[in-house]
Structure formats: C-alpha cells, structure tokens
C-alpha cells in the first residue's frame, strides 16, 4: 500500500476522512570506531564528515520506516505534518525522532 508522507497539513486533491492519531518512530544510534577515527582525521582539514552523514541518514530512514509501520497498523493511508527531532543521549549516541499525524484520505 503506497502511503502519502507529507510535511504539510494537506495533500492536494484529497480529503481527510478519519484522523487515526499521532504516530512516531525513533531510533537510537551510536557511532562506531572506524567512522570516529576517520572523523578525527577529517578534523585536521575540516569539511563534511561523510561517514556521519550516511549514518544519520540511514537511522533517519529507519525511524521513518517505523513510523510508517505504526501508521499501517492503525489502518491509515497517509501521514501529515511530519516533523523530525534529534537529541543527544550520551556523548556517543543520539536519538532520532520522526512524528506525524496518521489519517485516512480519499479523493475530494
């Protein structure tokens, strides 16, 4: 089932039939030593830390997937008004949160 995932409060051309509630997905990720050493070397010249970018990208996609799973179990076919949040738990790990409103849409 293809699900609409949007940041806005509306999807063009569709009407909200039922609001299923707030859904969220989160992951807690820690770095691993290889990327840490590479980042330490990168700190000599500065610039983008590609290892960390990929790591955080993957974990964000994972939290998005968990949110979609939760919405599917509620019987929704779209998630509106998605927001992301990050917080550092310890100095080695951070939580990536993704939350939105799961709704059932039909054509307007």
């Amino acid at each position, binding site marked *: 089932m293809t699900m*609409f*995932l*949007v*940041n*806005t*409060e*509306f*999807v*063009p*051309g569709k009407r909200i039939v039922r609001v299923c509630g707030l859904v969220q997905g989160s992951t807690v990720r820690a*770095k691993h030593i290889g990327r*840490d050493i590479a*980042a*330490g*070397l*990168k*700190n*000599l*010249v*500065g*610039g*983008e*830390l*590609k290892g*960390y*970018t990929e790591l*955080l*990208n993957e974990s*964000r996609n994972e939290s*998005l997937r968990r949110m979609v799973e939760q919405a599917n179990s509620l019987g929704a076919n779209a998630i509106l008004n*998605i*927001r*992301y*949040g*990050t*917080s*550092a738990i310890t*100095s*080695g790990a*951070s939580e990536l949160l993704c939350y939105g409103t799961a709704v059932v849409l039909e054509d307007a």
Partner: protein
Amino acid sequence: MQPTMNTWVEKFAFGMAIFFMILLPILWVFIPMSLSLLLEGRMDREQIGMIVGLTALLFAFGSAVFFPLMCIACSIWIESSHFRALTKAEHELSDMILSDLKTLPPNWHPNGAVLICENVVIANDYFKALLWFFRKIVGGRSRSFERLIERGRREVTVRVLRKAKECGANVVWNVRYETAIVQANNKEKSMAGVEIIAYGTAFSITGE
C-alpha cells in the same frame, strides 16, 4: 552525491604530508647509507651521526611546521571552494521556490506531494577549534563558526532543491531546519561536527 564538495584535495594533502614526514627522511637515511656501504665498505661514526641528525631535523620540521601549515592551507582552500560551488549551485537552482508557509496560495494548482529530507554533517578543523579556545577567553563573535554553519545550511538547502528537482517538482513548501551537535567520543564538551537537517514537501505547481 555531494557534487559541491571536494575530496581530492584532502587526499593530496595527506599524500604530501606522508611524503614529507615519512618517505623523505627514510630516503635521506637509506640511500646515503647504502651508497656509502657500497662504495667505501663501511661508514664512520661522524657520517652516521650527521645523517641521523639531519633525518631527525627533517622529520621534526615536517611534522611540526610543514604538516600544520599544509592542513591550514587545505582547510582554507576547501572552505573557499565550497562557497564558490554553493554560489554556482544556487544560481542553477534559482527557478525553484522554497517557503516555510503552511498553506499554498489559492490560485496555485499543486500536483503530487513528496516528502524531501536531506542532511549534512560538517566540521571545522582542529586549528580553528584551537583559535576558538582563545576566543572564548575574551568572548565575542566567532566568524569561523558562523561561516561553518552558513555553509552547512546552504549546502543542505541546495540538496533539498536538487532532490525536489529530480522528483519533477518546482516548489518546496513548509520547509523546516533542525540542527544537532555531533560530539566527539572521548571528550565531553568538544564537538566533532554539526548536523543540519532540512525537510519539506515538494509539489509541482501549474497555473502560477
């Protein structure tokens, strides 16, 4: 895909550093010693002492003077080339519209809605962090960190617009930015970098 950033410069810098710090001292020791052993049959104490001393001097000069200078020069070059590439990319993507409003204007007809989320993790080099340590003593603006965050924000905006263009959209709506600090593992308060996320919904608008 990170087409606005350069990687070959860092490889070149490390290659040069390794060459000057490791290979050149080894060549300066190995080749003279082997040549004199071949030609004269033995080397006396004075010659060995001079060669080892010069090697140590070369290694010290390489690691204490040449290597930091090389890193600083590389970081300056990386930063300025990133700014140039950003200006060029923003000019190419200037036909896209980015907004943080919640509702579309009434005369626009949107088609398709895709969530776009891009991130970048960006770091300053060690020497700028050292200068920041001195700056913290008197307080005030830190223009190097301002430039860093501006680079990260512009880079992530360019990535969002590029991805939206790939999806066939021409407008990105309800854009939000988030920042998080990536901390170094062994030190509590030092930062290894800054992560900047931008996310929004991409529409293709007809009837503007």
